[in-house]
């Protein structure tokens, strides 16, 4: 008898489906992955459901409803390892912009009958509610990093995912610095690596979709970007996107709040 295959589950909370789609976008690897693991729960891809417990649960999306508060506990209880995939699950996502505002007002803007809607006042990361074994950054996550994380957890080792800034990736790629050479504001110096310095490679500044790196000096960068002509309002907005409610980006966005 061969060993039973490890069971992989993919869960979705408030999100755009893009991070779990990353798994289906592994066109060259997908059938091999399906051969190596038992894809026990992956509603976007299959109606088949295998009961837990699961060896590895990938969790996409943030917690925004009372029902999801309960569901994430069930996912944790049924999973040996929980890995969050993407900015929503790791930092609350773009929908965490409600955390800076009044959700009642938000509902009134979008829905004619807010009474029909069940929602929490905040959008929070998975780690605010249950123990998380690993957090994979990015909006969306990087395919190569996802494969590395699945591989690492199945082999019971730490994932080899670098924690330096986008700047390091940019230098390794041989890009000309868009900020120094072209005066284009860029969040690369404070943003967690993983995308492969995509934006500077396309002649635009990094917009921080992988969230803050460890100990980022956001206030120094904000000073430089101000010198390049960004208004206080623009500084608030640039730190307030897909990872707005991380400690570091929240603090910097609030430091410039008040102007348009």
């Amino acid at each position: 008898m061969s060993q039973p295959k490890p069971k992989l589950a993919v869960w979705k909370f408030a999100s755009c489906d893009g991070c779990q789609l990353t798994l289906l976008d592994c066109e060259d690897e997908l059938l091999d992955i399906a051969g190596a693991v038992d894809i026990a729960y992956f509603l976007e891809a299959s109606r088949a459901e295998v009961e837990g417990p699961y060896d590895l649960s990938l969790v996409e999306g943030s917690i925004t409803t009372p029902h999801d508060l309960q569901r994430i506990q069930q996912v944790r209880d049924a999973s040996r390892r929980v890995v969050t995939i993407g900015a929503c699950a790791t930092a609350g996502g773009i929908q965490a912009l409600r955390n800076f505002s009044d959700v009642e007002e938000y509902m009134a803007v979008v829905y004619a009958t807010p009474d029909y809607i069940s929602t929490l006042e905040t959008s929070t990361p998975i780690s605010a509610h249950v123990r998380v074994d690993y957090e994979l950054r990015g909006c969306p996550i990087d395919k190569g990093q996802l494969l590395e994380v699945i591989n690492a957890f199945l082999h019971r080792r730490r994932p080899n995912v670098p924690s330096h800034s986008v700047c390091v990736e940019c230098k390794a790629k041989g890009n000309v610095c868009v900020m120094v050479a072209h005066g284009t504001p860029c969040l690369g110096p404070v943003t967690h690596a993983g995308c492969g310095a995509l934006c500077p490679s396309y002649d635009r500044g990094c917009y921080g979709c992988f969230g803050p790196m460890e100990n980022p000096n956001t206030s120094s960068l904000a000073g430089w970007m101000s010198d390049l002509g960004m208004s206080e309002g623009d500084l608030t907005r640039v730190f307030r996107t897909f990872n707005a409610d991380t400690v570091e980006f929240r603090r910097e966005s609030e430091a410039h709040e008040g102007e348009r």
Partner: protein
Amino acid sequence: MTHKSPANRAMKVDALARVEGEGGMYVGVEDGRVTDVQLRIFEPPRFFEAFLRGRRYTEPPDITARICGICPIAYQMSACNAIEDACGVVVDGPLHDLRRLIYCGEWIESHTLHVYMLHAPDFLGYEGAVQMAADHRETVERGLRLKKVGNEIIELIGGRAIHPVNVRVGGFYRAPTRRELRPLAAKLEQARDDALETVRWVAGFDFPEFEHDQEYVSLLHPDEYPIMRGRLVSTRGLDIAVSEFDEHVTEEHVEHSNALHAHLATGEHYFVGPMARYNLAFEQLSDVARAAATDAGLGPQVTNPFRSIVVRAVEVLYACDEALRIIAAYEEPDRPAVPVEPVAGVGYGCSEAPRGTLYHRYQLDADGLIVDAKIVPPTSQNQPTIEHDLWHFVEDHLDLADEQLGLRCEQAIRNYDPCISCATHFLDFRVERR
């Protein structure tokens, strides 16, 4: 699933699989007649239209892409169209062609995902593509290869397949060179063959007898199969500018759904998506795509929604063909983007997402900050039609046991490739027989 009792029953699917997002469905049956059908969308609301207020006019392409990881290009393009409209800018020439090219990539990627991984398993009796691959490995590999080419177009022009970084109001941050695009052509030649094989493969499926009499709505443009521009036209005489959308479409908030339901001002539900485009613009398909459709047994009008899988495959073939045409004719633009200065006012934009017409409207102030935003995704527009279809489909098939009926209904829902992440801004299946 509840037990079967022929005359009165209730049926539900709590969580629909193989759709993008979270939803379910409920059907009520009393004395052998359908009394209620609800497509339940419980994807948590994310309030995009609310938090777009106060953002800069340059931000919606990046922000609204996050509504949907499967069709981010559609969001980026409808946003650009609307903001450029507000600012009085028209983007044409090679930049328009590049936008159409990256959009072809998204049609190939999204349609192929749906045809092979989400919908075909229904026709062949599998739980999903992975299970299907055990018996049909070469076929699934063909689908993955085809999907990959779609993603490669998006990656080359946009930087990455999901939430590409290179699209901006006015055009792109960096335009690709002719030399960079060239390697795509060889891959697209292979993809075109794979797409033709796909049309032949799905044309051989068994299709339930089911006709619906719908009003089909799509963009329509005199020069090209609808993707990026045109007027909104229907098979029943609607012919309006995109800026007249709000006067002709009303959205309603129903209790069982976190997605708003859209109707025409006439009170009629309507249908957007591949079948609508096909029925309105069949003559504008490329010769190869038109011939493949005819060989597959499709006339110039398709009214059985179960055949939408064939239409989707024809659109993939068209998108491969169109991408090859654009690459062959591509002239590098003088600059990657047209400058767009903010103007106070309102702008309207539509484009044809894989699932159908996607509408954006933005009101800007003189500083270029967004005062108000409105987004109407295709699944919101199709929701009443899906419920209408289910109503009639269930009534015709009440002799089936709940489990069989449930499977058939799920298949019927997937005819529309509903994107629930988009529409909430769905699937739990229940039938109650009383």
